[in-house]
């Protein structure tokens, strides 16, 4: 085999930069409203902690990752105090602490200190899969618009969108957004949630070797991914179910599945994967 470690490391980081950071930074630069800017900043924050987790488990080399991080998170670090003041509730509590520590100690990357993985190498393929799923979702414009709409718009604005049957320009998260489009995207969001639920199950079913390692790795992934569809928010929960009912009405009704069974199964899925970061450590 060809000796590649540093080269492979740089290539993986180049991929992360191009596939994740570039589109998110473009969204940040193009944001015309505070809410759109905040959503992009949230995505940048998530990116920061993907890199931190990657370093923590040895998927990314620390020195190369610091080079990338030093070049990409200037805005995040400079605007984090105001950002957490308004939207901190969306994220895992230790994210704010770690960002603040990084700033105080003038560190580029702040790793988690609550746990040290014993055998982190076995998580590399799962990390790659989870990151791939997340990158896919942030490249999916309708899905991103659905998440951002539920998380950042006021209930009256979401209601107004849902009542619109044709394309509208009323939303800063999408050029065209309407009730039917949100409903169409619901199927994608279910598939997205299920992909993470399956991943979680896969990791869990291979946790015999070191259950604590597995437990913390799963919790880290949950912390990273759940803010985008944060079902702790009553607005998100309320409207996600309404859109789900509409999806049932337009796509499933008449095929032999009752709406109660649909709702029950969706609730099971949300309970399995849709829990928020605060409950992630306590879950199972």
């Amino acid at each position, binding site marked *: 085999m*060809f000796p590649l470690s540093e080269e492979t490391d740089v*290539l993986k980081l180049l991929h992360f930069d191009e596939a994740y950071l570039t589109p998110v930074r473009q969204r940040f630069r193009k944001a015309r409203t505070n809410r759109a800017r905040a959503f992009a900043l949230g995505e940048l924050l998530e990116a920061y902690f993907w890199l931190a987790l990657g370093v923590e488990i040895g998927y990314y080399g620390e020195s190369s990752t610091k080079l990338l991080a030093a070049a990409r998170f200037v805005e995040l670090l400079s605007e984090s105090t105001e950002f957490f003041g308004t939207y901190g509730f969306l994220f895992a509590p230790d994210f704010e602490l770690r960002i603040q520590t990084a700033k105080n100690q003038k560190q580029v990357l702040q790793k988690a200190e609550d746990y040290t993985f014993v055998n982190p190498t076995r998580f590399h393929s799962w990390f790659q899969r989870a990151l791939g799923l997340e990158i896919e979702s942030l490249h999916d414009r309708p899905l991103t618009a659905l998440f951002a709409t539920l998380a950042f718009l006021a209930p009256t604005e979401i209601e107004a969108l849902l009542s619109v049957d044709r394309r509208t320009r009323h939303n800063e998260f999408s050029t065209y957004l309407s009730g039917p489009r949100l409903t169409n995207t619901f*199927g994608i969001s279910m598939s997205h949630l*299920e992909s993470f639920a399956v991943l979680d199950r896969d990791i869990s079913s291979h946790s015999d070797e070191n259950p604590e390692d597995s437990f913390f790795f799963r919790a880290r992934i949950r912390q990273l991914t759940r803010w985008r569809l944060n079902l702790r928010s009553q607005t998100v929960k309320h409207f996600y179910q309404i859109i789900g009912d509409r999806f049932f009405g337009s796509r499933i009704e008449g095929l032999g599945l009752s709406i109660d069974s649909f709702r029950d199964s969706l609730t099971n899925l949300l309970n399995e994967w849709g829990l928020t970061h605060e409950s992630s450590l306590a879950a199972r």
Partner: protein
Amino acid sequence: MPLGGSARLSPDAGTDTAIVFVHGFKGHHLKTWGKLPEMACADESQFWRKADLYFLGYEVERLHVDSSAHKLSEYVSSIFPEPPASMFERSLDQYDWTRTLLPRLSVARIRPGPYSYSKLFLVGHSLGGLIIRRFIADKLQLFAANPQIDPDTPVRLATIRLFAPAHLGFSPSGWTGVAFHVSQELWIGRILEAAMYRYRAYSHLRPNSHAVTEVRQITEHLASLYPSIGPLSAHLLWGDEEQVVESGRYACDLATNEHYEPQKSHKDICKPTSFYKLPLNFIELGVPFV
């Protein structure tokens, strides 16, 4: 990646095989295959270690088989037999954050060059199967006016593996509430599969539609002209619980190269698990060896 999609490139210097995966209607270039990408990358056997995996990404909302086949043609041409070196190596003087690595590390490579393939596998699921067959037919039909001369196209080297292909058309049927009585793990898949039935676009690809029958006629005609050209004959893997497409084979597909797997549905058939490794074996070895 050329033209969209994604790839899993092997670090093995002896890599000689390109495997192109083509998903189906409302599918996803990676999710369609479940754990196949990571299981294939973790597989230490010669075949998978020496293979680069390409997952074609394309829009199939309107089910234009011809244009999708054309896109596949461009995609395959861009990687087989000579993929661009830029896919495998990057010069580090072009990125702001890598400049401090110079001159010690000026280029990052996945594996040492030169980069070329001698083997091509085309793997399709559902509509992806029909698109692959259309692509093969289009490529070989160019030579049909002079059948005495062997077609001079790299595509003749291809090996075709199709999971529940729509090559005989879509025929959604038999969907009942019973289909939803499955484990939570399969439930979302069944929901999304059921939702697909509601797309009117299916009617363009009914079993007797022009788009479907034409591919079959051309392929069977070409197979009679060129009986020794492998990619005109496919290996086929179906689930016993197939409810989305019409199952069966072309006259040029051998009965011994067709297999029906019990307790598998349209969406599950191509997704390997730790207990169901058939998809990987099927791709590598074909039906007679699975």
